[in-house]
């Protein structure tokens, strides 16, 4: 196999826009997404693409889309932040606590985001400052934040924080689709433009692709990674606030397992957990849509949701294998 790899490296294939379009990471996830749509249309029928069904899926996808768009920055810069799921839970619990104390939502939100940035800062200190293994360190933060969330929620395990104005805003519909779903789609587009066109986005990609080369090019690797980790925590914070607005409450189960849902979808969408510098927010969003489509199809056919996990797991392995064929590091 090593000989094959060497041979492949020997022939450096020049970039070709049409071929890149067909073999790139966004292309393969777009094909997967179209396949999911086709299967849904054939198996479930036109109900699958009805406005009602898309609207339900859309409101479920708001938080994963927001969290995924920001977590993608950390992946691009070559670090993984597993604590995003707990960050969503923590943020929704803290936000709900402030609301029950009678705070205005517009005052509670910035304070909640600052608290999330504080814990994101601890991640950054451990990973960038001390050189900790990102997966293990953020796994610790995942559990610690969940503990803090549970302490905040108290013995009942949930906080009821219904705020009519906020609820109406978050659950508003435009053209038959949830407003926040459209906003999340716009956010995905904006982050995609930011990644490929802005200075910070290019620096993040460069650091993730090859941190030594980036350092030689004069980019401060540490600063870029700190910013990426803070952005990831910020995304978790926003996701939690939106979650609390959607549900009108915060509970122990909020955000549990979200990190696996998001990262599996992002990797299916072309990101890589192991190397930075690859992936695109649009691909990641399509990955989330594809996974949501699969679970929606199984749901409409009333098949056990555990099959979704099996399919997602297999897709994840396939995506990693594809990433390796596309030039990812082989593990020996």
């Amino acid at each position: 196999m090593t000989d094959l790899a060497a041979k492949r490296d020997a022939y450096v294939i020049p970039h070709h826009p049409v071929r890149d379009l067909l073999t790139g990471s966004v292309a393969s996830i777009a094909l997967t997404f179209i396949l999911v749509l086709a299967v849904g249309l054939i198996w479930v029928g036109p109900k699958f693409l009805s406005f009602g069904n898309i609207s339900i899926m859309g409101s479920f996808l708001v938080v994963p889309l927001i969290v995924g768009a920001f977590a993608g920055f950390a992946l691009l810069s070559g670090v993984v932040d597993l604590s995003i799921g707990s960050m969503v839970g923590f943020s929704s619990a803290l936000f709900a606590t402030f609301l029950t104390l009678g705070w205005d939502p517009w005052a509670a939100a910035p304070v909640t985001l600052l608290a999330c940035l504080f814990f994101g800062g601890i991640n950054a200190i451990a990973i960038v400052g001390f050189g900790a293994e990102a997966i293990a360190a953020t796994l610790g933060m995942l559990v610690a934040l969940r503990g803090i969330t549970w302490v905040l929620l108290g013995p009942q395990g949930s906080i009821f924080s219904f705020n009519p104005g906020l609820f109406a805003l978050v659950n508003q519909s435009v053209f038959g689709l949830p407003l926040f779903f459209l906003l999340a789609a716009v956010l995905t587009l904006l982050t995609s433009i930011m990644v490929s066109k802005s200075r910070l986005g290019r620096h993040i990609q460069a650091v993730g692709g090859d941190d030594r080369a980036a350092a030689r090019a004069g980019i401060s690797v540490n600063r870029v990674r700190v910013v990426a980790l803070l952005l990831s925590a910020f995304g978790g914070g926003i996701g939690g606030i939106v979650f609390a607005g959607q549900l009108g409450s915060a509970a122990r189960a909020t955000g549990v397992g979200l990190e696996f849902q998001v990262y599996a979808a992002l990797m299916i969408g072309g990101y890589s957990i192991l190397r930075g510098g690859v992936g695109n927010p649009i691909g990641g969003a399509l990955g989330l849509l594809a996974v949501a489509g699969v679970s929606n199809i199984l749901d409409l056919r009333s098949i056990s949701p555990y099959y979704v996990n099996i399919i997602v797991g297999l897709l994840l392995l396939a995506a990693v294998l594809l990433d390796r064929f596309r030039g990812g590091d082989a593990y020996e």
Partner: protein
Amino acid sequence: MSLDQTIVASPPATVLQVRFHGWGTGLMLIAAWLLLIAATGIYRADFISHQTLLAVAFTMSIVGVLSIGQGLVAISGGFIDLSQPAGMITASLVVVRLSEAGMPLLVVIIGAILAGMAWGAFNACIIVFAKLNPVIVTLATNFIGLAALFLVFQLAEVPQRSEIYAFGRASFLGLPAIWWPMVALVLVVGFMLPRTRYGRRATAVGGNRMAARARGISLKATRFAVFTIAGGFVGFAAVLFAATSGPFNPGSGSAMQLNIIAGVILAGISLAGGRGNFWMLLLSVGFLSTIPTSLVFFGLSSDTQSIFQGLILVIAVAIDGLRARRGTP
């Protein structure tokens, strides 16, 4: 095997990195553990009791055996095995089914170990043949495995009149019977790893795989063996788990994951591979297993336990990173 000749013949261009820990980690762990015991004991004198000892030893047993498997994966450069919960529950299901069939204890134990090894070999096949990173492979197989287990069963329990049920509740020399095999396994593995050829090979692969391969060590065979043997430890942990847990569902094993990883890192077994002394696992796992009981005596809810465990892991990984960066053991 001409391994020794190869080492003599090859030029000393790359140093085969096999370093073993000094006793600094051990002293630090003993100090932390004693401090925890002393603080809790001063706050509540009834903490120092046989009851506490039993609770700590119970928690230690299963986590300890699993941390041997995790440690083997880490020291050989496989980072983390995230599929231990699925592997353990699979083997526990084998334990339940075999003991329901009235098999003797020895057959049950062997069955569980084989089931664990099969799970490890399954992971190893994907890792070795598809050349994928173990962290992602085990993340995915854990996902798939737990979902498949939920399709197979919802709740399982060993029958109350079986030998294994009695084994889970027996005690020996004032400590739970399940504690002793754990100690024995840690001592044996810790003794063998730096002293046998296979143990040194696994450590060498974790330290510097290129240097190890240049010495004629097969990376594929080593990886395959390490994951399969680590699976065997998961299988044995399943025996202890099924014997003591009472009714369990497929999600019951997931909470231990964090303590296991923290235990391995605190013991000084680097996630980067190639370094570590397995005897330290007794101290690190013992320290981590004392925390829940200690928090109960301080009157803190079990929710705060997660905060402490999580922050301890963050700190441990940070220290591990600092150590790896300095390059000193």
